[in-house]
């Protein structure tokens, strides 16, 4: 077997479709741009032509020594994760990898697929492809960097991330490099926000998750809607995202003209304003676990179609949720079971954390390519926080604004406006996603006020409707005609499976309790001066291996939602405190396991309440 076949076989095993993409590349055809050069000591290295200049991607003098020097730059830490931008001939990555152990992970982001294909023809890189702690990420193939990063970057290891850029790559692939680094930073920021969210909502989110895991059996999902809409030219129909900014009061009346000619997606906070102006939304998105009652009280919500996910407030769904399209990730095992039954996965998106960013992602997922914002101020336009229908919902308007961490942003008219950190972050998120999809989507900001969102076209709603809404389509009718995802019989069958979760948690709790017993013994040994150091280290290694095994159990996804305090505490210091004694280490681990044990008990209680009851 030649080098190429060997490499491809290894890639196929680990990355599936990537092998196919590489096979499709005819390296002869790209030889004007990419090639190999022979070095002074007879080795081969790759080069890439960029703006008429050939860039060698390793040393022409001694590529091996250059690679060793490169790897020497990095001091490898236990549990460290290294994001390497660029692969070149693989020598630098290999040297770095040699310094790592199985607590480390290397994520290689190669921005040039053709270059990677050529490297596969010439260099044996099987060792790196097959390595369990090396992950390849081909930027050209993975448009959703967040999906990949979600699996790698979590709070517990955030302080252990390091960026490594191979020489030349930051110049040759500048934009991709920046985008990759931004994606990792954004993921880290999301993890910090997740931590605050977990603390703020405590037991509410897991309770809502359990409730929705059962409730979704009786409703529809967004993939069904995507399939139904695929028969229509949705890419030419605008999706109007109605947010609850103060400018919504200026043009809400105009929105009625778009009814039946656009997909009107309303966020829950804007629902009052929309309904009071006689507009029927095609879909209402609600994600906040604490959506205020005032958003919904005293208005007729009959016939409303909702988009809900695991965080959506249970009470709202119980009271008004007669017709729901579900999306999102609930629990790995449950999403997997549903996907097996449905033949497709329930869609899940990496959104920007606000309900309007969820609505935006839903519109994109459904196939809409013309997105229109209204009420998307992302600033305190005219000193107001929200549309007048919801002002007061969050307390006194001025006091609400006063309490926020204020930053300034440029308004659509060039003046400076006040906003808060949260909305500033949402603005950044929209700008990034719009930029990433710039050749795919057109985004019109018809808010008629508020912050300037880079990448959008600014125009009035009246102009937008005149230009864009010229095709009749009854999306509401299409949605209503879609049946529940499962037949009554299937619903019963799946409910039985879901109820099996209770036993699964009980069994897992037994394992945790046993682990606690063992770790308590280990703690005594660690504190006992007569214990031999070698013996103790062996036991510690065993403990870490068992911890690793348990951390891979699917059921833990649910349990950690009840033990986030212990999880985050563990992340704050266990990997990063360099001078922890064995006893400290066991103590931390014990604390975490007691958190899991407590979490498992709470989860069992909530399963009784939200899943076992009829």
């Amino acid at each position, binding site marked *: 077997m030649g080098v190429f076949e060997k490499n491809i076989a290894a890639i196929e095993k680990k990355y599936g479709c990537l092998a196919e993409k590489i096979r499709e590349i005819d390296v002869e055809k790209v030889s004007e741009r990419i090639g190999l050069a022979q070095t*002074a000591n007879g080795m081969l290295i790759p080069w890439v032509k960029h703006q008429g*200049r050939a*860039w*060698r*991607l*390793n*040393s*022409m*003098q001694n590529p091996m020594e*250059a690679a060793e*020097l*490169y790897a*020497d*730059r990095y001091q490898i830490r236990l549990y460290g994760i290294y994001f390497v931008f660029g692969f070149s001939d693989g020598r630098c990555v290999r040297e770095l990898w040699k310094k790592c152990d199985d607590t480390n992970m290397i994520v290689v982001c190669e921005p040039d697929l053709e270059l990677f294909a050529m490297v596969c023809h010439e260099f044996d890189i099987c060792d790196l492809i097959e390595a369990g702690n090396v992950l390849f990420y081909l930027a050209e193939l993975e448009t959703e960097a967040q999906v990949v990063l979600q699996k790698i970057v979590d709070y517990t290891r955030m302080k252990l991330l390091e960026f490594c*850029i*191979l*020489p*030349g790559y*930051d*110049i040759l692939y500048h934009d991709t490099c920046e985008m990759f680094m931004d994606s990792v930073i954004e993921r880290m920021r999301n993890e910090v926000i997740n931590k605050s969210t977990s603390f703020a909502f405590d037991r509410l989110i897991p309770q809502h998750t359990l409730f929705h895991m059962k409730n979704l059996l009786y409703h529809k999902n967004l993939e069904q809607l995507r399939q139904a809409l695929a028969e229509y030219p949705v890419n030419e129909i605008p999706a109007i995202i109605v947010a609850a900014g103060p400018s919504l009061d200026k043009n809400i009346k105009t929105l009625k003209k778009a009814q039946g000619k656009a997909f009107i997606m309303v966020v829950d906070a804007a629902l009052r304003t929309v309904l009071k102006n006689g507009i029927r939304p095609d879909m209402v998105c609600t994600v906040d676990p604490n959506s205020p009652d005032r958003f919904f009280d005293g208005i007729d919500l009959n016939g409303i179609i909702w988009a809900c996910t695991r965080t959506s407030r249970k009470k709202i769904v119980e009271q008004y949720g007669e017709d729901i399209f579900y999306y999102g990730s609930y629990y790995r095992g449950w999403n997997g079971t549903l996907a097996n039954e449905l033949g497709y996965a329930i869609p899940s998106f990496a959104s920007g954390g606000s309900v309007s960013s969820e609505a935006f992602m839903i519109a994109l997922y459904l196939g809409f390519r013309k997105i229109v914002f209204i009420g998307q101020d992302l600033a305190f336009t005219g000193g107001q926080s929200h549309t007048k229908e919801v002002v007061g919902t969050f307390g006194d308007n001025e006091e609400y604004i006063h309490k926020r961490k204020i930053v300034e942003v440029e308004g659509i008219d060039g003046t400076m406006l006040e906003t808060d950190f949260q909305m500033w972050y949402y603005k950044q998120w929209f700008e990034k996603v719009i930029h990433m999809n710039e050749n795919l989507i057109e985004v019109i900001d018809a808010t008629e006020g508020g912050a300037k969102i880079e990448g959008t076209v600014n125009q009035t709603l009246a102009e937008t409707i005149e230009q864009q809404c010229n095709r009749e389509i009854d999306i509401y009718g299409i949605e209503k005609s879609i049946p529940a995802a499962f037949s009554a019989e299937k619903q019963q069958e799946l409910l039985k499976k879901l109820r099996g979760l209770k036993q699964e948690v009980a069994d897992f709790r037994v394992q945790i309790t046993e682990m606690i017993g063992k770790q308590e013994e280990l703690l005594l040994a660690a504190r006992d001066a007569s214990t031999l150091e070698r013996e103790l280290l062996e036991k510690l290694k065993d403990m870490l291996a068992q911890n690793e095994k348990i951390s891979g159990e699917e059921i833990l996804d649910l349990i950690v939602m009840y033990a986030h305090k212990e999880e985050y505490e563990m992340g704050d210091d266990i990997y990063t405190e360099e001078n922890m004694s064995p006893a400290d280490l066991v103590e931390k681990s014990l604390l975490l396991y007691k958190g899991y044990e407590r979490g498992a008990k709470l989860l069992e209680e909530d399963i009784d309440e939200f899943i076992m009851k009829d």
Partner: protein
Amino acid sequence: MGEKELLREIEETSHMLYQNKEHEAMKKATGLLGTFQNMIKNQTQEQLALGGNFALVMLRELLEAYQNLDMLGMADCLREKAALFVQFYFQNTENA
């Protein structure tokens, strides 16, 4: 700067360049470029003739890589041509 010191500086700078330590390496490379320019300026006609165009070729290559922010190009040029130039320069200065 004496020969040994200069060779050590070349070695350190090339290490940093291979390691893609852009900021520090570029600062050091700027310093070296200035030093080489002065050394070439100070060469006698005889020394220049002896070395042929080698010094100028080295300087041009280094400058080209420097202007393009090509770390590997600079590192290779320093290790190969610049180190040779420094040895040649000091040999001939001592003999002169």
